[in-house]
């Protein structure tokens, strides 16, 4: 038994010595063929949020239209898989690697430093200009979600009859709070002294609880509910529909859950932004080391009224169009911090 133990120890030690090896592998030679390989690595499951689902679908459409481009969508769940997956993509010879959120920034930087010939893109990284400048082969792009939710807030304030509107967010984090910030500022801009209630339901996958939270806001007088909580948001839509009040949707329309109560949706086309980045990189206009903001002006985000009903008046639709133009032209600036919680 002792011999076996000793042998195992030796095997383990030698394995760990290989594991300790600090030097990186030699990067694999880029395969000289015409297909451009792009990897898109998401920090959470694609089916957890509408915007990610739309993004994946948009990328698939793009791939179908271009014969010489291959796009691989990968999920990296758990912070300890970020760097391994980015590195694996780099070693497998992808030409462009796109990562998501500030969580993956460290992993992207580490791999980008080892592979200066690969173009990296990162979505919503929230770093400073100096940070980006230090990495010449990473280009950042982010979508300003405050713009469309500003329009949503304006619409909600104009449509409410009780003077109170509500917001149900998935969790108290910056991504959701940006949406809240735009919403609240839009309400203020309408100038009608409307009160807004804020709740976070701590889950993106529980429609039952989303429904409970929305019903609570309705009890407190809200007659417009803005549901920014993924799957739980569908529960909010149901609550609004059942109570006969109005629902403000985020990232998608809800024709099945709220056909009569949805006023409109903040459609943020993350896929447009990513595709714009890909087009730039493919055509030789890759701008590593910089960050770009996309919003209403670039057509990456629009506010679209519901297609299943006629809740909003033509007048309101015209006002929103004008507002969107003002945002696009820079006449209105919207802060990123919520006014209150």
């Amino acid at each position, binding site marked *: 038994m002792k011999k076996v133990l000793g042998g195992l120890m030796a095997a383990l030690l030698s394995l760990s010595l290989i*594991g*300790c*090896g600090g030097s990186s*592998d030699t990067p694999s030679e880029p395969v000289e063929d015409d297909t451009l390989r792009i990897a898109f690595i998401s920090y959470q499951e694609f089916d957890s949020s509408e915007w990610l689902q739309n993004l994946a679908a948009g990328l698939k459409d793009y791939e179908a239209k271009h014969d010489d481009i291959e796009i691989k969508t990968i999920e990296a769940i758990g912070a*300890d898989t970020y760097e391994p*997956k980015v590195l694996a993509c780099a070693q497998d010879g992808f030409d462009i690697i796109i990562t998501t959120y500030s*969580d993956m920034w460290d992993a992207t930087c580490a791999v980008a430093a080892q592979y200066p010939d690969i173009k990296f893109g990162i979505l919503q990284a929230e770093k400073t200009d100096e940070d980006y400048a230090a990495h010449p082969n990473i280009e950042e792009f982010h979508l300003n979600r405050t713009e469309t939710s500003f329009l949503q807030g304006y619409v909600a304030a104009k449509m409410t009859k009780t003077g109170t509107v509500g917001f149900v967010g998935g969790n108290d*984090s*910056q991504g959701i709070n940006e949406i809240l910030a735009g919403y609240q500022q839009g309400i203020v801009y309408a100038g009608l002294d409307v009160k807004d209630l804020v709740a976070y339901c701590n889950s993106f996958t529980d429609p039952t609880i989303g429904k409970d939270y929305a019903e609570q806001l309705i009890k407190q007088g809200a007659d417009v509910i803005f549901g920014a909580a993924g799957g739980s948001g569908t529960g909010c839509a149901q609550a609004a529909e059942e109570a006969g009040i109005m629902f403000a949707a985020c990232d998608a329309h809800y024709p099945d859950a709220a056909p009569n109560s949805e006023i409109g949706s903040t459609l943020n086309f993350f896929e447009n932004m990513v595709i714009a980045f890909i087009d730039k990189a493919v055509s030789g206009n890759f701008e590593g080391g910089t960050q770009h903001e996309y919003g209403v002006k670039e057509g990456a985000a629009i506010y679209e009224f519901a297609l299943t009903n006629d809740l909003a008046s033509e007048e309101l639709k015209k006002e929103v169009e004008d507002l969107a133009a003002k945002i696009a032209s820079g006449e209105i600036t919207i802060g990123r911090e919520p006014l209150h919680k």
Partner: protein
Amino acid sequence: MKDKTSNLIRNLINSSNSIVAVLIAFLIGGFMVLLVGESPINAYSAILKGAFGSPTAIRNTVRFAIQVMLMAYSFSVCNRCGYFNISQEAQLYTSALAMVFVSFWTEGLPGPLRLVLMILAAAAAGALTCLIPAVAKFKLGVNEVVVGVMLNYLTKFICQHLIAFSPIAAKRTSSIVSIEIPEHIPVPVITVGAVLIVIAYAFILRSTIPGHRLTVTGKNKQFAQASGIDATKVLLMAAVTGGVLSALCCMGEILGYFHMIYNEFAAGMGTDGMTAAFIGNNTPIGMMFGSLLLGALKSGSVLLSVLTEVPTELIDCVQGLIMFFATIKFFNAAQIDLKRRRVVE
């Protein structure tokens, strides 16, 4: 037949359980892969390549294996005393928070001193958290699984609150994370440290008095007390050791790789450790191989998602299947009388 040989054969038979389990699980997994429209051969070769096929792969495997192994040891140490340590996620969260807070509070002090303080704080936090359900079980008579599960949820929310709003919250990040801590431990140190822990754990358990006390108390508490062992003290020491082992896992992850607390970073780490402990039959070497298996699976799945279209849900399924079959006693060595070479019922 000599005793040593029969022992060896017994061990081999017991470990062949796990091998058969893994084979069955991979067979079913391969079938599921086929249903998805992918080739099982592609899938498994991707997993093997991702686990052992390159220095990077081996590095990943070792890293994940160490993670699982420390959690497995932590679970096993407590399990030997009848304390079902399901609050491992809570121990991870509290030791992570302790580390980052200490790092934040000791800004002016010299580097090595800060590191030592952080390590001590993390170990203390882990030990205390592990003690709570243990004390609840042994002094208050409350079921430790309830206390453990509630602690897991509670510490998760407290951790989220602290990395979102307290001084250690990072500003300007897309999701909630803590600030980055400057202290680093090089990866080779962590790997060598883990190997030393394996050796130390096996040695202490088999060849030292506290180790024997632990084993005896675990097997029969009354007998242990009759022999003069203070069973309660042994149990509490086991809980402390379990907490410190979880804290070591946390330290390895945060000081070696993450350098900050990610949201819900501990999700699933406890169950992985538990699985490895059961696959390895609670023995130090067995658990090490169990963790190597789970680590290999995890690092193999990295390449699987990059090279094939197999969805991540399937990888979870295969892991679940392995867990499932790993504890079926296909061959029970105890039931085989090696001397007379027949099965004894």
